[in-house]
């Protein structure tokens, strides 16, 4: 595997505003891409997730890794989520988000506090997760990328103060 990180697209690249296509081929190339994407996320400043369109691959694949949170949080380990779909939302929480594609800016965003999602793993097997708090926030941020939505599109008032997460 090549060890060059993939170049990360930054705002206002049009591809960050574009909806992605479903993944249909679960082959070694896909697994290699997922590893390369993880390697890319590792090079930047403390990322806990990344989505394929952030490196210009317009497919519904993202990584969610709440084990990398600075303060320990509930998590399901490092995840590759392919064709993910959120099937249930509950509660709301305000939290601060930043993005590898939007350097030097963070802002408050309201997300569902708990979610259920279904996705496929790199082998194409269906997986389901019930996530809460920080991990649920990561998944929602990354799945937004697959729909061409940035956290900037969801900013709320600086003084917004539901339960912080």
């Amino acid at each position, binding site marked *: 595997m090549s060890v060059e990180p993939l170049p990360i697209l930054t705002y206002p690249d049009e591809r960050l505003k574009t909806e992605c296509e479903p993944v249909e081929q679960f082959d070694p190339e896909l697994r290699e891409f997922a590893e390369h994407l993880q390697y890319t996320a590792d090079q930047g400043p403390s990322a806990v997730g990344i989505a394929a369109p952030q490196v210009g691959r317009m497919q519904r694949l993202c990584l969610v890794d709440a084990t990398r949170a600075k303060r320990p949080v509930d998590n399901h380990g490092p995840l590759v989520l392919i064709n993910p779909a959120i099937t249930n939302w509950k509660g709301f929480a305000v939290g*601060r988000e930043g993005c590898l594609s939007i350097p030097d800016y963070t802002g408050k965003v309201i997300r569902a506090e708990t979610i259920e999602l279904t996705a496929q793993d790199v082998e194409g097997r269906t997986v389901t997760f019930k996530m809460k708090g920080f991990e649920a926030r990561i998944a929602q941020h990354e799945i937004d990328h697959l729909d061409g939505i940035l956290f900037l599109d969801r900013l709320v008032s600086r003084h917004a*103060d539901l339960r912080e997460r």
Partner: protein
Amino acid sequence: MTKPWLLLTLVGADRPGIVAQVTRVLFGVGAELGETAMMRLGNQFAIMMMVRGAGTTDEVAGLLESTRADFGLKLHVDEIDAALHQHREPDVSVIVHSADRSGIVADVTAALLEAGMNILDLRSDVGGSADKPIYIMQIDGETTDGIEPIEQCVAQLADQGLTVRVTPLQTMRG
């Protein structure tokens, strides 16, 4: 060499159109705005903004003179050693409220400083009524020694009759 940033502060009675008028004049001479903060304080409107490319401090004051006079503003311009792209991330939020405690800001900030908290954003307000004021303060900051000293500090403040809530903040980046 890039031109230095100026810090403009403008304060005056809160009237519609202050911000639009001030920024229109500045953009008219090709100025660049950096970070700004503007808010109503009391019945006044206070503006702080980083500006460059509009000339010297005296030139900027001159440009804004008629706006200043029209709106009855106090205007101050300083050259400052500021820079963009230096954001810091808060990792703790402290919210305090109390009745009858006008020294709340001094007391709480002194205690938090001692506990290793660097304040990044602070708003304090007075609600209630003239004879029964309620003091409220919201602070975001970064800790130098983690959250525990902050929590201990807050417990002491609570013993003094303040209601204090500390919330760890964790920025999600992905």
